């Protein structure tokens, strides 16, 4: 409906809808501006609430979804454990060390998946023409897409990744210093920002090639799989491209080396182990640039 309305009218309809809920619910915080008009937050909050309600409609499906996702995250870790059944070391790392890398990678990805993972659906929006409607609303297009389908089940993945990381940390005996404690918090966040940048940059491909959404999976989900193992496992130009070109070595591998106090088997300078936040910020900058270029390039499919 909204996509056929002229922008000004759509804006008015939108505003009215948001005013109604913010009054009815009396949401605390800055839902409304000082003169009583709905703030930007109210819009996002409403989108999220609608999502939560819609997902709870189909109980059986929702329960299975939550359960399946819980086990799915465990399986990423189980895969690493299974590989160690047939070999004592992998790329020069023992099982607990590999688990630490895997745990860091999983937590980074889970945090990213929870916050921006939904950008994946953008190709559907573009193909069906629903992206036009997104652009007419007076909210940021990127944030709307991100809020469009908040998957509650993804919260379970974060919890589980934290548990795996805690178990791994218990097994490897880290010599704790304040710097390492800070790194433990900063590394997953940097990793999430890096993954998020790849997700956003990857989704813009759909602006140019409407049917090619799966292309981005090579780098998003591929990145997740890449980071779950020590970088020493890979070789040649492939390692260079993924580890350094796309920066995936900085998600889990280098932070893990810093936590373990282990020198880089690839003979990189020690500073690399601590540089994840810088790499993440640079990646976010590049992604923002690509997104802006993409959105300017957007042409409706007309369907």
């Amino acid at each position: 409906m909204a996509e056929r309305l002229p922008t000004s009218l759509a804006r008015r309809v939108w505003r009215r809808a948001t005013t109604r809920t913010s009054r009815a619910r009396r949401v605390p915080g800055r839902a409304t501006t000082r003169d009583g008009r709905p703030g930007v937050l109210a819009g996002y909050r409403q989108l999220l609430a609608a999502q939560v309600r819609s997902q709870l409609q189909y109980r059986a499906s929702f329960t299975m979804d939550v359960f399946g996702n819980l086990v799915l995250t465990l399986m990423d870790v189980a895969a690493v454990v299974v590989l160690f059944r047939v070999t004592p070391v992998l790329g020069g790392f023992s099982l607990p060390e590999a688990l630490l890398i895997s745990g860091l990678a999983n937590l980074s990805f889970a945090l990213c998946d929870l916050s921006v993972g939904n950008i994946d659906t953008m190709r559907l929006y573009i193909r069906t023409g629903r992206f036009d409607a997104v652009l007419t609303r007076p909210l940021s297009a990127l944030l709307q897409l991100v809020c469009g389908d908040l998957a509650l089940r993804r919260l379970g993945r974060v919890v589980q990744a934290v548990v795996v990381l805690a178990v791994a940390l218990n097994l490897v005996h880290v010599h704790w210093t304040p710097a390492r404690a800070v790194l433990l918090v900063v590394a997953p966040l940097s990793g999430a920002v890096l993954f998020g940048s790849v997700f956003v940059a990857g989704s813009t491909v759909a602006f140019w090639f409407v049917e090619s959404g799966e292309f981005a999976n090579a780098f998003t989900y591929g990145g997740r799989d890449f980071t779950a193992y020590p970088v020493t496992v890979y070789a040649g130009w492939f390692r260079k491209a993924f580890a350094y070109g796309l920066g995936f070595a900085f998600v889990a591998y280098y932070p893990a080396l810093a936590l373990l106090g282990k020198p880089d088997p690839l003979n990189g300078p020690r500073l690399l182990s601590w540089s994840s936040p810088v790499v993440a910020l640079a990646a976010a900058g590049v992604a923002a640039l690509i997104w802006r270029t993409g959105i300017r390039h957007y042409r409706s499919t007309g369907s």
Partner: protein
Amino acid sequence: MGTAWALAVAGFRRYSTYRQATVAGAFTNTVFGFLRCYVMLAVAAAAGGTAAGYRGPQLVTYVWIGQGLLAVVQIWGWTDLADRVRTGDVQSDLLRPVNPVASYLAADLGRAGHAALTRFVVPTVVGALCFGMYAPHALASYPVFLLSVLVAVVASFGARYLVNLTAFWLLDVRGVFTLWLLGTGVLSGLYFPLAFLPGWAQGVLWVGTPFPATFQAPIDILVERGSVGHRALLLVDQLCWAALLLGLCLLVQRRAERRLVVQGG
């Protein structure tokens, strides 16, 4: 038979129009091929050249053939039918004078044919160019592999169709679909050859679940792991699963039609 052929051709042609998607899919499978191949080679190297009965080149073939095969058997599933149930479009499928299971199977075989000529070829060629792949020693392995792939497609179709049929009861199949992804990703042999698991777990998976029959069986036949008798057993396991799943599809389809509530709108 003429109808089935026409439906299969239509399935083939439908997928041949998604050119960008085919290229993107083949690209993604190839990237994952590199990822998995390096991990498996590292495992084989650290384990002293042989891991769970696979030598290095066999693992290379395992990974790359697998990357091609996953599109042919459509390992990540599809929800076309479930979507049609939710929107009510399924009524037009039910009005046709062909059993829906048969017509969807025919279309799926056409789709698999298209995937075999495109998505299967790309990772296989890249793998052969970049790594040392194992080629079967016995000439008979090639035709048996083709037969095994065909049975795998039918078995996989049966399982996917059953997942979609739950839409008649649940309308929203997201949950069932997640469970399907869980089984198909980990238990089919995609993430690691099931031989890496303890013996009892392998037994449970091969006999108790259809997943290995849809994926690992054809690959094990091609890389010639185990004795000839062992590989013959894999094919028997596949045939049993394909027959069982198709039978279940027909049965559940009949029950589902009685449950149908066409959604308005």
